[in-house]
């Protein structure tokens, strides 16, 4: 099969990408505008994208507003992440037949579909790589995740705008897509042009790219791409210093700041649900009324609930202080021990969607300041 490594595709031709993927049998998922947010849903045409919209984000606030152009990818990330497809909020683990007391356990059949995700941001590619390590790379392979993940086709987007709560630049995950894409595009839009500079990241991507109409990209095109991502990197809404962050969190386990955050935290679990790397889950068992059929389901769980740490009639983490400490410590410190990477990609979702605007970048800074003061 012939492949192309780069291509400049005009706006009018971009719809062909969706058609090509759909015709190859992919379920194509992309950003869409729904209920005043941008969420990832099945798409069948370019018009399904949030054309001409952008998002204004800050601690505890998210608003969609009109852009003064018709950019296709002129916003950042919303409350959904791709984990909803790879690690769904609910999934069936097992069905159990009970034939007069004899139990027969059957895992669900592998779904007969492949996903193509269009419009994955750099931080989100990094998040998928992190969940890959959790569900595929730590000894055991999670069947649900593996089935959804198998055959995935990824179209990344280099961000041309930075969101108010974004800090991927300081986390070194973006705004340029670094790895894990089959194709990556950069949207170039001004008075005179509207086109997309594509690069292939895999053979599968190269094959699709070859079938798209367009011309080879030149040095000038790549210079434009570099200028766009550099400008985005320079306008990050937040930043986090990750040097020695693990050690600082461990030495500040008893910082008074944990209590100050906990006084505001509602333990609502929003932060864990929107986070693209959070992976905790619980199980639910049901049986039919005639007790002939049982089912085990897995659903997302959160370390902010009391049940999460229930043991001998009491939660181990009874106070909100302990629960917030668990969450932040896991993201930034223990994750490194467990999976050789930090558990945060700097997408800013937990800041935006926290109803009281608790900000991981500010909290970690406050928690570690004490370690600079001599004891």
């Amino acid at each position, binding site marked *: 099969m012939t492949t192309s490594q780069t291509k400049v595709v005009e706006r009018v031709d971009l719809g062909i990408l969706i058609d090509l993927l759909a015709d190859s049998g992919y379920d194509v998922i992309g950003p869409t505008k729904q209920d005043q947010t941008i969420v990832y849903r099945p798409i069948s045409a370019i018009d399904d994208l949030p054309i001409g919209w952008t998002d204004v984000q800050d601690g505890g606030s998210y608003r969609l507003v009109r852009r003064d152009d018709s950019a296709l990818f002129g916003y950042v990330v919303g409350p959904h992440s791709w984990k909803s497809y790879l690690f769904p909020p609910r999934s069936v683990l097992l069905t159990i037949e009970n034939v007069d*007391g004899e139990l027969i356990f059957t895992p669900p059949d592998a779904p007969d579909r492949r996903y193509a995700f269009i419009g994955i941001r750099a931080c989100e590619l990094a998040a998928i790589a992190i969940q890959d390590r959790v569900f595929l790379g730590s000894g055991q392979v999670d069947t649900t995740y593996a089935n959804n*993940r198998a055959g995935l086709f990824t179209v990344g987007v280099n961000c041309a705008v930075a969101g108010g709560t974004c800090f991927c630049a300081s986390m070194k995950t973006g705004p340029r897509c670094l790895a894990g894409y089959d194709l990556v595009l950069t949207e170039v839009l001004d008075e005179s042009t509207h086109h997309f500079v594509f690069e292939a990241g895999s053979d599968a991507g190269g094959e699709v790219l070859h079938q798209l109409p367009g011309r080879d990209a030149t040095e000038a095109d790549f210079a434009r791409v570099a200028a766009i991502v550099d400008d985005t990197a320079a306008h990050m809404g937040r930043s986090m210093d990750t040097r020695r962050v693990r050690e600082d969190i461990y030495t500040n386990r008893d910082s008074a700041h944990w209590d100050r955050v906990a006084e505001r935290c509602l333990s609502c679990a929003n932060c864990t649900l929107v986070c693209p790397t959070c*992976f905790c*889950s619980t*199980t639910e068992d049901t049986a039919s009324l005639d*007790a002939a059929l049982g089912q085990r389901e897995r659903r997302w769980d959160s*370390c902010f609930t009391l049940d999460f*740490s229930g043991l001998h009639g009491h939660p*181990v*983490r009874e106070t909100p202080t302990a629960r917030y400490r668990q969450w932040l410590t896991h993201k930034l410190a223990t994750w490194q021990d467990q999976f050789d990477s930090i558990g945060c990609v700097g997408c800013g979702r937990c800041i935006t969607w926290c109803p009281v605007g608790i900000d991981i970048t500010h909290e970690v800074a406050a928690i570690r300041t004490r370690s600079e003061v001599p004891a």
Partner: protein
Amino acid sequence: MTVVLSTIEATAEPMLPRPFEVVATRRETADTVTLDFAATDGEGLQFSPGQFTMIYAFGVGEVPISVAGGSADDNVLTHTVRAVGAVTDAICSAEAGTQFGIRGPYGIGWPMDAAEGGDVVVVAGGIGLAPLRPVILRLLDNRARYGAVSLLYGTRSPDDLLYEEELRQWRGRFDIEVEVTVDRAADGWYGDIGLVTNLLTRIEYDPENVTAMVCGPEIMMKVVAREMGRAGTDPSSVYVSMERNMKCAVGFCGHCQYGPDFICRDGPVFTYAAVRDRMRVSEL
């Protein structure tokens, strides 16, 4: 992003139980039952002392339970279960013939090999004797490989003692020292009263050449490690079994995280040296 995962569909489902049938039950105390299970496919479950399985009760749920004994060759798997909620109630009220789903075994167990050549002190509190029962049986089966062996066991009251018949047998032997104590005595109790940790001073062991295996409430495990430390035992020779909420046993559900460790796969047995700092932090 397609390349990496071509082989994945072929791997086994890590959360798929096998059917096991209850073949015998023995009531231990008012709320605790010991059950022998047999795999219905005839393939016994191979385990090492200190490991646990996940037991699924039809339509009710699945819980982690330590292996309390058995033999894979004979297709016997023994568990001792205390009824504290929906799933453990279902297990404890099961009669012979009832089927459960069991998967595992999981986790890193007790250091049976590392303990060879030295003294062994086994300390159990309450239901904590269940995961230590295979240790004692293994020690007695291979008695020549170990130095002095003692078992210290404490429960709330004489009515809460597990494995009474076996305890009597073990006490009758000269190659294991068995000390039992209760928090509250009752009529007819002529044994010790008080904390199990008080018994430590009574037994003979070489503090510098001993392996301790301790399972019970965290506070008890801490005191044992501290007392033995005072006597000269290194914290890396004291092993404790940690417990946390657990939903999957294979490192996916996140519930059993204990600092950087997943208790299901990095434990449940840890050296005291490894967890000492964490045990000092409340609500970790």
